[in-house]
């Protein structure tokens, strides 16, 4: 009995919130965490499936960091030659670079090494894809408008960095396919007018291939670019918290509030679950879908080449642009501008990313709209913006398809010339078809009464006289929740009535 009493006395001394409460007290005395922490826990996240696209990008980046650290423990960033004597018999005795040998070794001789390598590669492909789909959501719903222009610019920068780092990482194994990719990248750098050869020689430490490009790509890939990405992701999320989330218009939602679920515990449960699910999905993909089997490609050899190879998907639009560009080289006054390379691989991506980055400003110039926007647009209510975005995506999709001209020609048994000219025509024509068609569709949908809203059901009843009567159901059953008025997150819950009379205070006092 006495031990129980001391326990109770201790508990009483700790106060109503026990050890957690004590820890909060200690922390708050030193750092002042209570007020801000509470505000953060009450932060409201609006519910819409499209808001989780950015989370896919964030969580695949987490997977990239975790699996990437694992890979750096075994990968050797060196292009010195070694003789391969590993567990992959077909390569036995071949002279390969240490980079290639260590990548094959970590795939076959390290426990879970191949799984980690495939997860890293799949996570990268998903990372870039999720960024682009997330950006499409932000673009088509107008979430980039004032006050969020800066965050759009940061997001575009993150996309460019993700693509660049994807290419660098893809190059590190020094296999035949990726080595050809580096060769092409070097030639693209040479194609920059005036300073191209200097850029190429400084980056590669001399003429291609040199011996420093693998270590240099390595330090860029594992240190410099990830650090910049990490910093920008942090800033991206800080701005999200500071400016609060956008939301779609709806009952109870205004420009001046946010309606949804609180950070703690509801959103935290859902988003942590989503992190686990993204990790799980990437692991499952990596278990069952092989990606980049470099031991089949073999080591890089500048005088060898593989057939019917494409780069990772996010480089496809550039490869397609290079394929369909006619050979319009400029050669005069003792100088050369290889437009067949400069235009599709230097000028075009430069213009594309500049326009994307500057889009919030461009749209503000066109519309003259300088107001704050916290409520999102339905894409059908902004036909011109929606059509412009769709036209750009249509153009990029055609370039992407054009990166497989040879495969298409083989597959369909038609001449490569036909495929090439078809893709040239499609690339030029597609935007001009997509723009007016999308605009018209958006206008029609936008003009529909109740367009974009879910239809409520009609309940059909048979009367005693045999007549059918249709009455609209008042509420779509699963939507009942939306018909509650939103309430602020409660400061506390009023305690439930005591339900265990046997343990009432009176009895215990008497015990004492």
């Amino acid at each position, binding site marked *: 009995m006495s031990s129980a009493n001391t326990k109770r006395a201790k508990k009483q001394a700790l106060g109503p919130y026990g050890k957690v409460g004590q820890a909060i007290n200690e922390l708050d005395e030193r750092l002042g965490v209570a007020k801000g922490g509470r505000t953060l826990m009450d932060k409201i996240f609006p519910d819409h499936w499209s808001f989780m696209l950015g989370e896919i990008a964030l969580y695949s980046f987490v997977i990239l960091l975790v699996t990437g650290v694992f890979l750096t423990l075994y990968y050797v960033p060196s292009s010195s030659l070694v003789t391969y004597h590993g567990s992959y018999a077909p390569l036995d005795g071949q002279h390969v670079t240490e980079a290639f040998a260590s990548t094959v070794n970590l795939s076959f001789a390290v426990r879970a090494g191949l799984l980690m390598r495939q997860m890293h590669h799949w996570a990268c492909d998903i990372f870039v894809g999720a960024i682009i789909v997330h950006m499409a959501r932000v673009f088509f719903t107008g979430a980039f408008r004032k006050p969020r222009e800066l965050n759009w610019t940061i997001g575009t920068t993150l996309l460019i960095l993700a693509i660049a780092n994807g290419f660098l990482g893809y190059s590190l194994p020094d296999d035949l396919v990726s080595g050809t990719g580096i060769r092409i990248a070097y030639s693209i750098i040479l194609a920059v007018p005036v300073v191209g050869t200097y850029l190429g*020689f400084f980056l590669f430490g001399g003429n291609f291939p040199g011996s420093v490009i693998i270590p240099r790509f390595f330090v860029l890939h594992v240190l410099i670019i990830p650090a910049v990405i990490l910093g920008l992701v942090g800033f991206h999320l800080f701005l999200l918290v500071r400016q609060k989330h956008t939301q779609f218009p709806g009952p109870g939602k205004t420009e001046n509030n946010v309606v949804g679920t609180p950070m703690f515990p509801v959103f935290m449960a859902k988003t942590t679950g989503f992190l686990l699910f993204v990790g799980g999905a990437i692991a499952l993909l990596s278990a069952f879908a092989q990606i980049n089997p470099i031991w089949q490609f073999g080591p890089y050899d500048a005088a060898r080449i593989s057939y019917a190879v494409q780069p990772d998907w996010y480089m496809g639009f550039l490869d397609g642009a290079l394929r369909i560009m006619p050979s319009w080289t400029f050669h005069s006054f003792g100088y050369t501008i290889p437009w067949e390379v400069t235009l599709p691989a230097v000028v075009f991506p430069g213009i594309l990313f500049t326009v994307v980055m500057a889009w919030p400003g461009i749209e503000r110039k066109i519309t003259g709209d300088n107001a704050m926007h916290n409520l999102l647009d339905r894409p059908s209510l902004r036909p011109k913006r929606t059509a412009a975005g769709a036209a750009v995506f249509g153009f990029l999709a055609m370039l992407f398809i054009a990166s497989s001209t040879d495969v298409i020609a083989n597959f369909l048994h038609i001449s490569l010339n036909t495929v090439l000219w078809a893709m040239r025509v499609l690339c030029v024509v597609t935007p001009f078809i997509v723009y007016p068609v999308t605009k018209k569709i958006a206008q029609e949908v936008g003009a529909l009464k109740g367009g974009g809203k879910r239809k409520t059901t009609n309940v059909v009843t048979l009367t005693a006289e045999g007549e059918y009567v249709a009455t609209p159901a008042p509420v779509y059953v699963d939507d009942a929740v939306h018909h509650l008025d939103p309430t602020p997150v409660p400061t506390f819950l009023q305690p439930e009535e005591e339900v265990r009379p046997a343990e009432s205070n009176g009895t215990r006092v008497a015990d004492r």
Partner: protein
Amino acid sequence: MSENHEHRTPVALSGLSPDDPHLQPAAKNPLLVERLIALSFIVGTVLVVLFGYFYVKNGTPWTLGATLGGGLSLFGIGLIAWGKYLMPRGPFVEERHTLASSDSEREAMANAVVVRGGSVIKRRKMLGGLLGGGLGLFSLAALLPLLRSLGPLPKQTLDHTDWKPGSYAVDITGRRVHEDDLAIGSIVTVFPEGFQNTDNGQAVDQTVIIRISNSDFTTMKGRENWAPKGYLAYSKLCTHLGCPVGLYEQQLQMLVCPCHQSMFNVNDGAMPTFGPAPRPLPQLPLYIDAAGYLRAQKDFDQPVGPGFWERS
């Protein structure tokens, strides 16, 4: 817990009673959902334990991936379902507060930057100028060695290869190519002797020799005697982006670049007939020495590979 009620019911703060509809779960049948979530957590736990087991046993990648992926996915699905169906369904609301400061606060900031800062600098214009100028020059000075240490200047590097007058053509193993080696229609990749194992030799000097006929062959005017006994040599670097032109279409007598499908007509001085390549592949003039070995008369008469600014 029950004895602490008196501490917990404080002053008048806004609250909700536990039976408020905002705090009810969204699920119509919470017990069923709870059981399903419990099931997914249990199966998930079994799978991640199996992952540990397979790891210790050095299992195949797919067993590791399936157990890890399955376990994480089930934990994730269960946790998402818990948050979505069993936690308070809301909706909850918070107000946005304008981020902008008041006019007077803005003015105070602008004043501090322009007037306070300006007065300090204006009073010591010379110091400001010296510091700014010095740091500006430093940034330039820091930039130059950084760039220059990264690599050598290009100079004339791209204009030449290692092919010299009299260089033997050798294959990748270093074996000299003899006039009896190739049947008509055959092709071999060659390098100048001594460079077949060097980075530069493989990346820049790589050349294909195609035997096109039995007799001396002239691809164009001015290139008489360049292809003795039908041995034709072209740079293997595509003039588009520098990929090795590794495919020889024997019946069409075309060299094809697998990267972007440029095609070069071997009979016609390797003129590009298809694809984005802008120039013919440079031809290497060959001769056959007294012992019957193929050798270069001289280097290529133009830079090999893709175009660049200084290419005249």
